[in-house]
């Protein structure tokens, strides 16, 4: 029975699915998970480096969507952005509580890669390459600050201490880096949309 429900929603936009979730449609919540559960889990896993904690972060984020979907403003953000923002916030909160994990090196990119091939579809692979290529275009110090903050869960003042740079410098680097990243990604997106039209 629930399969029928899921198929029903397959043609809906993410934003329409979130609107159904706002009306307490649990089938819609299942649909949202079907679309973004794997991406949410991969993100939480990257930040937390722990399967159980990652599950907790994902579950809490989806339940936050369930409780707060009526507050989602489609004109402000894409539904996927909103969801991944919630996942990231939960993961970062958890990793800061689990202080010990952050002593581990951050550049291990293979910790979860081998088991994930099933969840890895072609679109996601292209998207990942696109973002990684954009990151590589950033000046080293900007990229470092952004990666340590986003994937490591470090705050700006922690980064200032860890990297031995003034706090003001870290803030400026993060701002400049994210501005550049946004510009590169927007340009790439525009290019992609030109190609398909």
């Amino acid at each position, binding site marked *: 029975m629930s399969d029928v429900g899921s198929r029903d929603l397959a043609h809906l936009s993410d934003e329409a699915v979130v609107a159904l979730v706002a009306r307490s449609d649990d089938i819609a919540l299942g649909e949202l998970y079907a679309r973004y559960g*794997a991406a949410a889990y991969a993100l939480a896993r990257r930040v937390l480096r722990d399967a159980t904690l990652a599950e907790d972060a994902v579950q809490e984020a989806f339940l936050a969507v369930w409780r707060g979907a009526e507050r989602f403003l489609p004109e402000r953000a894409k539904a996927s952005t909103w969801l991944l923002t919630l996942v990231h916030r939960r993961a970062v909160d958890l990793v800061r509580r689990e202080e010990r994990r952050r002593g581990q090196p951050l550049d291990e990119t293979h910790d979860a890669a081998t088991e994930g091939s099933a969840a890895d579809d072609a679109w996601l692979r292209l998207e990942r390459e696109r973002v990684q290529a954009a990151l590589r275009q950033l000046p080293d110090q900007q990229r470092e600050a952004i990666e340590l903050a986003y994937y490591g869960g470090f705050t700006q003042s922690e980064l200032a201490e860890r990297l031995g740079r003034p706090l003001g410098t870290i803030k400026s680097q*993060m701002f400049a880096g994210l501005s550049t990243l946004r510009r590169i990604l927007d340009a790439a997106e525009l290019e992609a949309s030109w190609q398909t039209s």
Partner: protein
Amino acid sequence: MADELIHELSAGYALDALDPHEREEFEQHLAGCERCREEVATFASASAALAVAVPPASPPPDLGERIVAAARAERPNVVPLRPRWTPRALPIAAAAAAAAVAFAVGALAFHGGSHASALRSIPVEGASGSLVVSGKQAALVLSGLGRAPVGKTYEAWVLRDGAAAPAGVFRGGGRTITFRLTRDVPSGAMVAVTVERAGGVAKPTRTPMIVSGRV
């Protein structure tokens, strides 16, 4: 100058990299600064792109089901101070709907139900409220049930011997709704509610969101 500095925090905010006190301060600023809200929105899509750049990882196969079950067990936040759903919260939920039950009693009595002393309140799972039964007639008394989505309706079912018989459609919304089932509920049956397309359907197409105990 101070404005420029706080504006710069929008990137750190979008990356979840602010210290707790700064996060709070920035959120206060955000409430009154359209420019920063827009900045955060566009930065958020850049940081969400970073989310996609992580190595893939497969969640446990049952995580989605667990999340949906947990959501179902929680009630939508329509009713303020709604107690978190647990079996122990049942009497509380029933008590909260007491006024509506009185209304249901009236409704059942009006439709020729048995004497009020024969009323029984049967707990439901998946919503705050109860199934009020009088003889073979029954009414669902539910609080905090959001309005059915556009083009959809709630549909009640009487479950018996593995079959589901339609028992009327309703829209939900409002603080408390009382819905008198259009079909008798014999002893041993259960009542369920699904979300269906407007107008209702002859057989449930969805997993029930609300299920009562056995009558």
